[in-house]
């Protein structure tokens, strides 16, 4: 490799960016194969999300892959739960989320909460000697109960029991 060529890490990052649509397609790859690979990854990503969010996928009907493929590029894959959460919220904001998918989203909020949520210590207590205790209390509370809302669907969880209501 010549001294001016980008190293392995930069090239790998460029390929991942190109395949996930978070960056342009990197130079040098066969264009048709690159497009096929990108489409295959997107289809797999949609299938993974549909497995975690069956009502969301059903809500989109036969256009599921097409709608997801229109949304996903440029958004770094966050895993099935996080991707489905973000896509469902976007459809909710656009007024396009059906009632069953809204119930699924509200229930997910009550069960697992926002994706990637780590109980942060409150800013004023971050350096407090009891910061660890606050974090544990927060985590314990979130284990004991949860609340989720999506449009007119509201979900409440106490322990393992879950109630979902639709507001009129």
């Amino acid at each position: 490799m010549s001294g001016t060529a980008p190293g392995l890490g930069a090239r790998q990052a460029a390929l991942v960016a190109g395949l996930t649509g978070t960056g342009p397609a990197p130079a040098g790859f066969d264009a048709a194969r690159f497009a096929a690979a990108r489409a295959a990854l997107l289809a797999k990503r949609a299938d993974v999300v549909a497995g975690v969010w069956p009502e969301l996928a059903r809500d989109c009907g036969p256009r599921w892959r097409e709608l997801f493929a229109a949304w996903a590029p440029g958004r770094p894959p966050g895993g099935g739960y996080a991707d489905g959460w973000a896509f469902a919220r976007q459809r909710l904001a656009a007024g396009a989320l059906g009632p069953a998918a809204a119930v699924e989203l509200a229930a997910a909020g009550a069960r697992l909460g926002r994706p990637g949520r780590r109980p942060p210590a409150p800013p004023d207590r971050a350096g407090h000697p009891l910061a660890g205790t606050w974090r544990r209390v927060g985590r314990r509370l979130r284990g004991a109960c949860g609340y989720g809302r999506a449009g007119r669907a509201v979900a409440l969880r106490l322990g393992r029991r879950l109630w979902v209501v639709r507001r009129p």
Partner: protein
Amino acid sequence: MTAVPGYGVGIGWRPEIAGFVAALPGLRMVEVVAESVDPGAVPDALSALRERGVAVVPHGVALSLGGAAPVDPRRVDRLAAVAAALGAPYVSEHIAFVRAGGVEAGHLLPLPRTREAVAAMAANTARLQAELDVPLALEPVAAFLDWPEDELDEAAFLTEVLDATGALLLLDVANVYANCRNRGTDPLALLAALPPERVAYVHVAGGSSHGGIYHDTHTDAVPADVLDLLRALTARRQPPTVLLERDGRYPPAALLRAELDAIAAASGHPAVT
């Protein structure tokens, strides 16, 4: 090198087919996606298999051993803990990368077949092997695209990776089939160029063609051509274990049993059904 234990025909354990797998009378080995197992809470179904003497092998899919960045030590520790919790005879991962630049690809991506990639693979594999108490087998992936900077052909690249890491080979005949078919090269020549004595076990899986490209989907039937490759491999040296991977669109139990029987016949192992 100590002899690799052989288990005949195995299957990838997935929660959706746990009942089917548990009902296979002759089964002696399953593989489980390592990232799906909590080392502190092994699923009861896997514990039950272990109690009847079935070996459980963790198959890592997210370490990104071929990444230029050092492998995440937390992922290494977790895989080692899963292997210990399962009492695994060996562990497997991929010759691939799955993330770069802080972005997850969501899929196993092929490495450029360069000496720089061999060195990255060797460095990360050494970090993993340092924490494992059991041998590691590395699996070459199905590559749906080739890098412009490729310096080596696939056989030379894989041989260099195996030499540089000292790892065993998890040879996926469906990946060999996919890569050679998509590149228009001879799968038998690739098989012949790989060291048979390094094979810890073999993967077999199904796939399908779209737009002239063969996709290793794990959700379709195993093509006859893939079984032919398994037969050719066996003729050279019988692989100690041959494992069916099925990851979705599960067929009726009778069809899955027939695939296991076909794999047994092609590899000269007793049927497990």
